[in-house]
């Protein structure tokens, strides 16, 4: 939280060049990883329990500590595999959005889930991320009748578009902000 450091004007130019190189070099920094999970079919619902290891990069952790709220998306996709093509058919998708922010006065990390009436406070970032990475009893509607074989995919990522406008070019450019997990797929049969 020290913002006294004097900024060299050309550091931005260097950052632009470095960012351009990094953008070209890599787009696959893996900060979020899937640890374990299961999907259970209950009547016409799919109940997901999963644990993801959410590790912030230095850049995103610094932004969080400096008052920038982060929005983490949990994306669910219902897919129908197609034997004749690599890409699956997208049947339906849902997004679960969670907000993580730092409260400087209380020195707590606050997590706000869509269905929660109030934020949950955590004394450490690790606690907050651990809470965020635990998905319990996420209930999703099952596909319509006729879809006997289908896949459910899950991915977590930081929503860069939800960042402040000034931060987005850097977030788009630098790999430290490209935090997202790989898609985890469950093959299901009705």
């Amino acid at each position: 939280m020290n913002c006294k450091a004097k900024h060299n004007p050309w550091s931005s130019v260097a950052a632009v060049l470095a960012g351009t190189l990094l953008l070209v070099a890599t787009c696959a920094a893996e900060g979020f990883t899937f640890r374990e999970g299961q999907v259970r079919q209950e009547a016409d619902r799919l109940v997901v329990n999963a644990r993801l290891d959410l590790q912030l990069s230095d850049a995103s952790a610094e932004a969080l500590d400096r008052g920038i709220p982060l929005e983490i998306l949990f994306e669910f996709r219902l897919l129908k595999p197609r034997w004749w093509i690599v890409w699956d058919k997208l049947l339906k998708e849902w997004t679960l959005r969670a907000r993580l922010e730092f409260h400087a006065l209380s020195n707590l990390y606050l997590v706000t889930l869509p269905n929660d009436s109030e934020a949950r406070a955590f004394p450490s970032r690790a606690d907050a991320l651990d809470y965020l990475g635990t998905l319990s009893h996420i209930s999703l509607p099952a596909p319509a009748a006729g879809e006997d074989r289908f896949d459910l995919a899950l991915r977590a990522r930081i929503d860069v578009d939800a960042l402040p406008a000034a931060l987005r070019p850097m977030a788009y450019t630098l790999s430290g902000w490209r935090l997202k997990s790989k898609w985890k797929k469950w093959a299901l049969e009705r």
Partner: protein
Amino acid sequence: MGARALIRFLVGPVPGVAVTLSLLVAVFLLSSAARQEAFGEHYTLLLIVNLIGIAALLLLIAFNVARLVGHLRRRELGSRLTLRMLGFFVPIALIPLALVYYFSVQFISRGIDSWFDVRIEQALNDALLLGRTSLEAIKEDQLQRVRDALPTLSELGSDRDLVRELDLLRERAGFSEITLFARNGRVLAYSSESSGALMPTRRPTKGIVDQVRSGTDYANFEPAVGGGLDLRVVVPVFAPGPSLRMLQVVHPLPLRHARLGESVQAAFAEYERFSYLRAPLKFSFVLTLTLVTLMTLLISVWAALYFAQRLTAPIGDLAQGTRAVAAGDYETRLPVASSDELGVLVQSFNDMTDKVRLSQSQARDSQRSAEEQHLYLDTVLAHLSSGVVALDPSGGVRTSNAVASQILAVDLQPGAGLGELAGTEPRLQLFADAIRSGIAGDQPEWESEVALFGSRGRQILLCRGSRLPGGGHVVVFDDITALIQAQRDAAWAEVARRLAHEIKNPLTPIQLSAERIRHKYLGRLEGSDKEHLDRATRTIADQVESLKSMVNAFSSYAQPQRMQMENVDVHQLIEDVAELYRSVNLKISLQLDPAARDLRADRGRLRQVLNNLLTNARQALGTTADAEVRIITRRSSGDVGSFLELVVEDNGPGFPRDKIGNIFEPYVTTKEKGSGLGLAIVKKIVEEHGGTQWAENPPAGGARLTMRFPLAGNVGAVARIDDPRENIA
């Protein structure tokens, strides 16, 4: 599209303009995306599109530069000028752009930095620290109050006692909510100042539970529902038995403290957020500025390349066209690409080449006409039977026809002077003198007859000269030797015929009279008279007989003979005749060319030729030691066909120099008793066969007589003279 069309397309304006427009749109969209106005979700794509556009522009520039380097290496016209213009244009664009970029980066950095004040930052930090200290004091106070209440709670057992005791504790201590949890997190008792609340608003998180289980109290302020801060305290409650309980107390911060705290938190958070965004903000601005600058730079370089090439193209075309004209290509036309001064210059060049081409065409036509006239004159001159020599004013040969060289038997080279001609060929001295005399005179035309003497005998030329307009002279001359000779031969033939007629007639009565006198009076006379008469009549008879022989010879010479033409083996004939003349004192050697063997001729008359020549040779050699006669045949070719040459030469004294010119005329003889008709008859027979002959004294000594007979197939090419008199007529 062929490679040439592709290159023409790449160096044209379309790719550069298209990439430029695309880049402008992409940069605009990127700028909008950065400001979160629109296209935010496509920011990365737009950034990549920009980079691809810049790369495309770079490739376009690299292609143009490589092409220019190739032109420079090949020293193509206009390439150096293009490079020079590029050297002007690029710095003009680059230097201001670099300056603007430098100061813009500085301005952006300093401008954004100026938004932040160190003192404000310090004040906010201090305020936050003060707030935290104040809250810490409140927290410690509340924590102590909770701890004070713990002994009472530890002694309680039943749920009913717990709820009542919690109510008393909450009311006594002024807590807003108090909850007792079991070890497993179950709510054992709950008390709230809100009468409607049945369950606690918060439950201890796993971290709090772990902390409390480890024996450490938890106390912290947490944002409350609806704003403000709540103080949550969680402490362990050691009840009888093994189970651990946790007491959670939630107490809202006093309103005044809460407002102040929220104010400090909000202000600090806002400032901190802005402070953090300072670097990303600079990054965003500098990224856009860099892209725009790079794009502008590349567009400027490309435009400099394009316009430099476009400007120098007409100059290069002009230089190339000038070289083509210098090389004689007047068909070159340059494209007029503009209406400016360069266009006017190119149009003027095209007009000039048109005029030059027209002049060149006219000159070519004139030259062709002159050449045709020259060729015409050459043809006419070449087919003239007269020799023609054009002289310059100083007397040097300017030009001549082939007949002139043939008549003079010298190779007349242009530039040779008359003096030089006479120097190399002394026999032409009279000819040169006659011409000098003619051109030195005042008359525009002159005529002169010149007699030349050489190894081929006497040659008579009739020369006519004329003064040419513009200086110089033309001399036309004919070899009239044959003409004069023919006239002379005709005269002699006429004389012979008259002699035969006028003399032979009285000879018979004379002879008869003499015999009659002899017959009548010889028996009557005696002594010296008888002897005198006998001698006189015999003399008369002998002389008459001699006269008759002479007249018969003349008659034979004068009368035309009927030719008995047949294929004659000349070699066989020569060997037969030569055998008759071979003797101890005369050696006859033959050099016979197999290619000159057959001749269509009158065998008898050809034999007479050989007889006459060998008789003459034998008489000429007389008592010469090692007397030898060589008979040579050979085949020769000339402009008018092939000939059989028959040469008879001896090693005698040769022809007298004063007679060699008319040795073939009748009565010309070198012998005391010769009739003078031997060679004249030879000449006549040769000419009856369409041939020619000449006599000469070889440099090695002796006499040589050469006869040239036309071979079958080209007899018509040589004048055939059956009767000299008819020819004269």
